[in-house]
């Protein structure tokens, strides 16, 4: 047992100290955090840039339409279009909006002149303003009061509430559950591949560098294999942990930095107080919730979404299914590594391993539409696909029976593949210069003694 710890320690340290690990560890969270940060940051930039727009309105209908805002500043020019056009390059305007006079109909045509190509944003903005003005004029003309029209507008809020077995109620957000499920399934898929092939490459390295016979004269081949698998599992867990911590850290730092302009803190505080008031009055909880929804639907929604994700269950099952799936597959990866002399020979044996994983990702897209269907059930029970498919189902809520069955089978499968891989491994690692095929491997498995 002491020796297996030594092997785990070596496998772990050698990888954690690698440059590529350190680079990945820091680059991963930066990429992930930038997914949140860059849109916000870009929004910031846009706000600070005020565009000056000259307007020549020959109809005089739009006098009050173009009001200065944070991003736009308007000036009405009293000059002919030709002189304005000729002087546009020397004047400090982003664009010139020309609305020609009309005789009978309402002026619905306009032209934008600019030295640079006017952006879609600017064009949409101006078009909307004009559209609103014309619409209200048309309403007036047909005798419909604007308020009457507004009163006829309806906004449907469909809140979906999930009832659990004990009768409790929980708002469900299918889109969020989908997102969380799919992302964690995808991460499990990538990690099984990434760390599984690290196990395989490690075994091949030991074989090609010819150190393996020295090692197995001190430890049993099975110990060497398990030590490698467990050491790399720890590397994977370290990577995940660092990513979570760093991503959260970067995001928090960024959010804090921009908190004034984004008013993040105020929002969070409001959420906190609402939460307190909600939980303090247990009986009237539902009603309170509805009230607050009416008061501030936006904030309430954010709060509800965050609450609807059961982080404890998701993180716990993520770790279980990541480890279970990884241990099951990496034993097979180790067996492949032991059977070949170099990485190029691995191709023919990779298919049976990669096929179920890729199938799982394909099936995932259907499971996400119907997480309770028979497809979802079977693929989340069969161990070869369960680590990926179960992660998709979990955010939607999984019956306890399914969960226990899936977990038990995964553990059983991990023990079975490890036992099988151990038999291949102990023969394979000492076999050099032999072209190995499936029949040969089957003989190794059947052979009672090594």
């Amino acid at each position, binding site marked *: 047992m002491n020796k297996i710890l030594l092997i785990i320690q*070596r496998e772990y340290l*050698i990888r954690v100290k690698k440059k590529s690990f350190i680079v990945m560890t820091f680059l991963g969270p930066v990429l992930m955090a930038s997914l949140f940060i860059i849109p916000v940051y870009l929004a910031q930039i846009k706000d600070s840039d005020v565009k000056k727009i000259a307007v020549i309105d020959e109809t005089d209908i739009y006098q009050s339409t173009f009001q200065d805002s944070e991003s736009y500043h308007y000036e009405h020019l009293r000059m002919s279009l030709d002189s304005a056009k000729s002087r546009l390059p020397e004047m400090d305007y982003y664009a010139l909006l020309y609305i020609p006079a009309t005789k009978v109909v309402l002026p619905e045509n306009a032209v934008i002149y600019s030295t640079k190509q006017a952006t879609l944003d600017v064009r949409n903005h101006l078009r909307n303003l004009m559209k609103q003005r014309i619409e209200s004029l048309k309403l007036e003309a047909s005798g419909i009061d604007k308020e009457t029209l507004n009163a006829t507008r309806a906004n449907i809020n469909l809140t979906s509430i999930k009832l659990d077995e004990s009768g409790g109620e929980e708002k469900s957000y299918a889109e969020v559950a989908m997102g969380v499920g799919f992302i964690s399934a995808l991460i499990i898929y990538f990690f099984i591949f990434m760390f599984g092939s690290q196990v395989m490459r490690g075994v091949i*390295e030991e074989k090609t560098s*010819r150190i393996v016979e*020295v*090692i197995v004269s*001190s430890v049993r*081949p099975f110990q060497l294999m398990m030590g490698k698998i467990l050491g790399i599992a720890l590397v994977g867990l370290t990577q995940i942990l660092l990513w979570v911590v760093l991503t959260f850290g970067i995001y928090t730092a960024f959010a804090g930095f921009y908190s004034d302009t984004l008013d993040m803190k105020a929002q969070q505080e409001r959420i906190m107080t609402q939460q307190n008031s909600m939980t303090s009055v247990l009986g009237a909880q539902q009603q309170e919730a509805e009230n607050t929804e009416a008061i501030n639907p936006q904030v309430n929604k954010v709060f509800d979404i965050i609450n609807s994700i059961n982080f404890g269950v998701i993180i716990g099952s993520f770790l279980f299914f990541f480890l279970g799936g990884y241990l099951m597959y990496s034993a097979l990866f180790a067996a492949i590594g032991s059977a070949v002399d170099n990485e190029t020979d691995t191709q023919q044996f990779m298919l049976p391993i990669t096929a179920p994983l890729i199938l799982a990702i394909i099936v995932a897209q259907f499971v996400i539409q119907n997480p309770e269907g028979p497809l979802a059930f079977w693929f989340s029970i069969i161990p070869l696909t369960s680590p990926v498919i179960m992660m998709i189902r979990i955010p939607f809520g999984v019956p306890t029976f399914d969960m226990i069955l899936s977990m038990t089978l995964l553990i059983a499968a991990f023990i079975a593949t490890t036992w099988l891989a151990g038999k291949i491994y102990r023969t394979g690692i*000492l076999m050099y210069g032999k072209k190995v095929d499936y029949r040969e491997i089957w003989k190794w498995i059947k052979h009672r*003694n090594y």
Partner: protein
Amino acid sequence: MDFLVANDISKQFINHRALNSVSISVPEQSIFGLLGPNGAGKTTLIRIINQITAPDSGTVFMNGQRLRPGHVAQIGYLPEERGLYRKMKVGEQAMYLAQLKDVPRKEAHRRLKAWFKKFDIDTWWDKKVEELSKGMQQKIQFITTILHNPKLLIFDEPFSGFDPINANILKEEILKLREEGATVIFSTHNMESVEVLCDHIALIHNANKILDGEMKTIKKAYSNNTFTTRLTHLKGSLRAELHADFNILETHQADDHLQAKIHVEAPATPNDLVRNLMQIGEINSFNEVIPSMNDIFIRNVQENNLIQQS
């Protein structure tokens, strides 16, 4: 007393029989040569002693006890297919291998430093293995093989890949280790080193042991009563004067002397031959022809092949 005894070891692989009821006894503090052509089964026997593979039948005893997993800490093994982790630092790697052999961390560090000093390779400690030449790596491998002071050392083709200088250092270290009490099993094709080093040998061919024993005894058995002699001042023809009990195998006539290889047929003795030769000329030299291990090896393997063919 025999330090290592292997009794009736048989091992069947999927496609061929590697060992067929092979027994060897390795006396304590001796150097035991395990000889045989490629694919004879030597490496399989060595792996069985190292508990890397298990025999189908037969038992191995070490120091009187049946072989068990704990014994690996007393065995130092330098396999034929050997190497090191290329990306790992030399010192770190040696420490790791020593700890796998149950040497405590501190003790491993102390012993390694001493060995590195002795081989004058202190500066290699923090180098990566891939920066070292093959010969340098062999030195590290040798150190890691013996660092845990094993009572039994097993070298499989230890001299392959060594330059003559390092091969000589290795040879001397092996002899020194025996003096200090270690028992050495040593598998090789290099018959010259067998002559220099081995006390006992066993010859394995096609999964069977075909010859074993003390080297002196074996050589004696194969010495065959043949002598070479150099004569000067010949009084007549050797062929005419020599007694019928003596069979001339070859002669070589030089300017002033005659060289001859003569077989003594029993019941005549070498002394009879000397007396006979004294009458023919002046004896400059008289030596028994001792067959080389190389000759014995080839002769046995070929004879064995003939038996198997018939």
